[in-house]
Each structure stands twice: as structure tokens, then as C-alpha cells.
């Protein structure tokens, strides 16, 4: 009796399953398999599965890009789908605030909830600079790839370059919008203004020793017109910047930062050989 019932129900289930079958493009799973699976949202879609569905359904891959996997991943996605992917230059997150504990004097103590978003909604910040890092680490908490940590010496978050995928989660999480996705650059070499302070020079300088004071020296020295000065703040456009580094020594506050460059040739480093001889 039971076995008859079992066979009957199995038949019912079979027909129901056939009747209500949902067709799913097998390519979605194929694309999903090559995606990183971090569900970071860097592509602008809610998770990797959604990105895979979108890739399969979209007519072209022009608007779609997974910043985590980069060009290599997009090429394999394009191969699966038989389309072409657009090449994009890889980016990574750059913190544009140099106001470490020693450069930026604290004017008050915040003892509220340990969240940058909450602190920013309450007041101007624990230093005289209203634009600077609040040092409460919202960016570290949102990073799915563990590419950010707070430096206990400077109080600022540090981007771990090899781990950063440029997904942009920290850009959205920072209430002061201090992070920017910038080109990784040739051999990882980058040049940027490490400040977001839009106050007038004297005010900015008083608030933070590392602030851009909007003096415009870097703009004058730049031969490629890559630096723009707006609201008392210089900005280096990484598309036009040729990384000549002429602006770096010009900056009176050292707000222009160079990353991953080889040390400069000993043209202006005259004291060094003397030290050397004394030591040896």
C-alpha cells in the first residue's frame, strides 16, 4: 500500500517539477564560478550572483566590471559568454588625509559611539580640521578583503596595497569622503595630494601641519596641467599626471605624497655621503 502511494506521489512530484520548471541559463553558474565570491558590491550590484546574472542577460559587457577580479576576470567572463570586455586600468583605494596624531592636534575628546558616521552627524571632529579623518574606523569594518587596518601610531587607516581590490566600499563608508579610487600606476607609483581641507590656508595650517594650504606652487610648477586648485585645495588628476615629481619638493607642508618611487638620486642629499664616511 505504502509503496503504491510512494510511486504515485513520486509521479505527481515528477509532473509538478516538469510543469513548474524554471529555466536558468547554465552560463550564469559558469560565470559565477569564475567570480571572486566576496559579495563586496564593488560592481554596483548586490553580490556576485547578481553580477553573473547581469553579465549573462546584458547585451554587452561595456557597463559591467568586477573591480576585484580586474581585466583578467572580465576576459574570462567574456570568453564564456562569447563577447568582448572593455579593458579598464586597475584602481585602488587611497586615503587622502595626512592628519596623523602628531600632525593634527586634538582639540577635544569624543566619547560617543565608536562609529565615524555617528560622530560625523554630531559634530565637526576631534581636531580643528573639519575635513579630516575621524579615526574611528568605519572603513576598516566595511572592508571585505581585510585590506585596511588602523595604524595605532598615526591613528589613520592604512591601505594594504596587495589586498586592496578597489571595490570602493570604503569610499562609500567614509562620511568625510576621504578615500578615492586612483589608478594603481606604473609599478604601483602614485602621486597625490594627501589632504581634503578646503579651508583658507592660514586656518588649514593652524588645524593641521600636513594640510594643503592652497598656495598653488604645485600648480605653477606642473608642466602637464595635471594639478587643479579649487576651494583652497590642490588636486592631482591621475589621468594627466606624468609622475615627474616636480611638485613634491615645492609643497611647503609636504601634503603631496609619492608612493613606491625609488629613492631620489643623491643630488640634494649631500649630507648623506658625509655621514657615511664618518660611520665607516
Amino acid at each position, binding site marked *: 500500500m505504502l509503496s503504491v502511494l510512494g510511486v504515485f506521489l513520486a509521479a505527481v512530484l515528477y509532473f509538478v517539477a516538469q510543469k513548474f520548471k524554471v529555466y536558468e541559463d547554465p552560463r550564469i553558474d559558469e560565470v559565477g564560478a569564475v567570480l571572486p565570491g566576496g559579495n563586496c558590491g564593488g560592481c554596483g550590484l548586490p553580490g556576485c550572483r547578481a553580477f553573473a546574472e547581469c553579465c549573462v542577460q546584458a547585451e554587452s559587457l561595456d557597463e559591467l566590471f568586477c573591480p576585484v577580479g580586474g581585466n583578467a576576470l572580465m576576459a574570462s567572463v567574456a570568453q564564456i559568454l562569447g563577447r568582448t570586455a572593455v579593458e579598464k586600468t586597475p584602481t585602488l583605494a587611497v586615503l587622502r588625509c595626512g592628519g596623523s596624531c602628531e600632525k593634527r592636534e586634538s582639540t577635544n575628546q569624543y566619547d560617543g559611539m565608536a562609529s565615524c558616521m*555617528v560622530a560625523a552627524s*554630531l559634530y*565637526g571632529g576631534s581636531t580643528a580640521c573639519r575635513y579630516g579623518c575621524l579615526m574611528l574606523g568605519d572603513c576598516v569594518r566595511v572592508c571585505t578583503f581585510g585590506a585596511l587596518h588602523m595604524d595605532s601610531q598615526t591613528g589613520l587607516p592604512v591601505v594594504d596595497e596587495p589586498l586592496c581590490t578597489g571595490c570602493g566600499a570604503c569610499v562609500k563608508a567614509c562620511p568625510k569622503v576621504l578615500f578615492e579610487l586612483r589608478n594603481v600606476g606604473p609599478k604601483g607609483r602614485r602621486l597625490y595630494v594627501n589632504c581634503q581641507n578646503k579651508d583658507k590656508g592660514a586656518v588649514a595650517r593652524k588645524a593641521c601641519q600636513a594640510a594643503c594650504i592652497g598656495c598653488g606652487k604645485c600648480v605653477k610648477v606642473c608642466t602637464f596641467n595635471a594639478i587643479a586648485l579649487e576651494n583652497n585645495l590642490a588636486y592631482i588628476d591621475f589621468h594627466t599626471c606624468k609622475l615627474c615629481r616636480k611638485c613634491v619638493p615645492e609643497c611647503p607642508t609636504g601634503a603631496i605624497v609619492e608612493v613606491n618611487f625609488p629613492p631620489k638620486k643623491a643630488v640634494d642629499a649631500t649630507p648623506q655621503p658625509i655621514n657615511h664616511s664618518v660611520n665607516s
Partner: protein
Amino acid sequence: MSKTFSVGGIHPHDNKISANQAIENLPLPAVAYISMAQHIGAPAEPVVGKGDYVQVGQIIGKASGFISANIHASVSGVVKSVEPYPNPLGNKSMTVIIDVQGDEWMEGIDQSAELVGDINLSGPEIVKKIAEGGVVGLGGATFPTHVKLSPPPDKKAECLVLNGAECEPFLTSDHRLMLEKGAEIVVGTQLMMRALGVQKGYIGIEENKPDAIRHLSKLVKQHSGIEIVSLKKRYPQGGEKQLIEAVVKRQVPSMGLPIDIGVVVQNVGTALAVYEAVQKNKPLVEKVVTLTGRSLLNQRNFRVRIGAPLSELIAAVGGLPEDTVKVVLGGPMMGESALHLEAPVLKGSSAVLFLSEQETKRLPQSACIRCSKCIEACPMGLEPYLLYKYGLSNCVEELEQNHVYDCMICGCCMYTCPAYLPLLDMMRFSRNQVLAIMKNRPKN
């Protein structure tokens, strides 16, 4: 029989240490920092420039837009500069900085203490004078008074409720005003009742101020329309919605305004400012500020010129008490701590409170134990613990469904929380976030 509101509320120790200190005039400051953004709404437009000589009561900032208020010079002297200057919270607003010279008032301002009780003006004329005088709600919210007194044509006010509850611990400025300027407050109430065209006015006072209740009851005997209502001591009785419920037994709907149920609420300090603006031609240039704190030796209630830096107030009571770690503008529950002591007194500042480390220290937080104390305490009937959890995971839709926008940031939830969770911080942030989303949502 004292009345009160029905839902939530807490009973903090009231600490009214400065209640017996009569109001004194603070000496003129050397420099006044008069901000153009001292009210809710659009900041005023500065109409003076560097080097101009101004007199007390002269308009230096013109109201821009419907919800905005005029700003007047509170001192006489030369304008040093007009520049962005950080307010007590560290946010910069356009500020007229005046080097004080002498004390010369504009012509036509009646500075005498004589009571002018006869009301000769019509309603619209009163509202116009209030608008010219730059009067804003002095209970702390600083909503322009003339806007509140001109309800939209489809809504009709039925009664005026005056807020003398002063439910925040420590504050005594309204209490002193009711005792010393009671007659003026009654005239101010009549003026606002005429402006609104209502026959009934109530003054709600908490029963921890029996002298004020007695004094005002005596004064309103000859005025049939005004009634003094004794209220039980309970925080946040001075909240607009709570006060209305306590006094006239009506509830303001969610997202609604008191005018929706025919009530307008004003603070007793505002009533005095209205009296001065209308009967004495004196714009809002002074403010009574309580200087208090458990470890402060000289408790004071000062009449301060708006724009005087906090440092001058503190010097007048003999400097900061040694154990002070936090200077709060307003009461301990809803006041905001000052970021720097060169910040000016604003129209909405009711007190300068000095708190010690022991009083302000946050204890280490632990997990929510679902004791529901916060739900019992919330005067708006919200579930703070739930909103906190939604807020942490940024569930904006759920926050909206659970009426986070009704939160009035009174802090009752955090006051009762045995796990010391930062409920208030999260609620304030979520509320502002949700309100901003709702405001920007396209209307169908």
C-alpha cells in the same frame, strides 16, 4: 491634581541648584560673535560689513526665506569682520564679529522695567513686530516664532500652551523668569493669543516649582482666558508633544505638528521675548542663561547678550571648576557639549552646565538583555533596542517602518539602558538618515 503624559518618561534627579539665584546682568563682553544661523531654517543674510558702526538692536542679519529670523546686534561697536566662525558644535556659520564700544541702544527701544499691559495692536501687527524682533522659540529648538504664530489657512488654532515645565535637570532660567518676569510673561501670552485668535491659553508648570505656580496663578486671576496647569515632575514633560498631552489631553499624530490638533506651544522665555519685541520695541538681544554644575561654587542665572563668548560667562563665575571635563550647552539630557570656549551664546542656549568626569563617563557597553526598559521609557512609544539593531546593520527600510522619525532624541532610552548601549547616538543618526531619505523621495 497634577497632570502628566501617558507613555514613557523617566525621573532623573532634578538638581535645580541655581533655582534661588536671582537673574543678574552679565557685564558686556569685549567682543561679540553674532552668528547668522541661530535658528532652524535658512540662515540670515548679513547686512553690515567690516568697519560699520552698529547700535544695540540694529538689524545686522536679514531673514532670508519664510522660515528664518532677523538677527540684531546685541552690543554697540564696530564690526571687526564678517566671517565663518565655529559655533559651539564646531560647525562654521557666517558670523558678525563686533568689537564692543560703550552701550548705545537704537532709538525707540524702551529699556525701562515699567510694565506695558495694554494691547493696542491687531493680530497681524503683533506677528509682524515679532518677526521684526527676530524672536525664535527659546525652549531650545529655536523655531522662528512668527512662523508658528501664522498657521496655514486650512488649520485653525484653538488654544495656546505655554511651556514652563523646564523638565531638564539643572536648568533654572525659565523658573527664574516666571518668578521675576511673571507679569511680562502673562502679557506676552495674551499677545500671542491675540495673534492666533484663540481665547484659551494654558501655562504648564512642573510641581517642583511651587513658587512659580503660586506667583503666576495670582497674576492670571484677572485674565479669564489663561489657566495655570500644575504638572507632575517627569522628563521629558517639556517636549512639545508630551506637554500637549499632559495639558489638553490630545495626541499629536505621527509626523504631524501640534497645529494639526489645534494647539500651538511656546516657551515662557519666548513669551517674554514676544512681550519685549511688541510692547517695548526691544528685539531679541538678551537671553537668560543658567550657569550651573554640581562642583560649581557660584551658581548663577545671568542675563547675557547674545554672542558673548562662553569664556566670559565662565570668567564671571570664577573660572571652570577643577574637575570639569565637559561644558554642556543646555541641560544634561538634551544639551550639546561645547567644542571650544570661545564659542558664542546663541539664541537657543539656555544653560552652561559643567560636568565632571564621573558624571559624563560612559560605562563599557555589554549585550542587550532585552529587558525592555528602553521601551517603557520611550515617550514616543518606540522600541529603541530594535531601532538600534536595525541601525547597526543599516536597515533603513525597517527603521522607517518602525517610525524612527518620531524619535525626539530625549535620551530616555539610553538613560535607562542597563547594558549602557549607545542607543541615543544610533537613534539620532538613523533618524536623521531616514528623514533625509524621506525628504528627498519623489512625491506621487
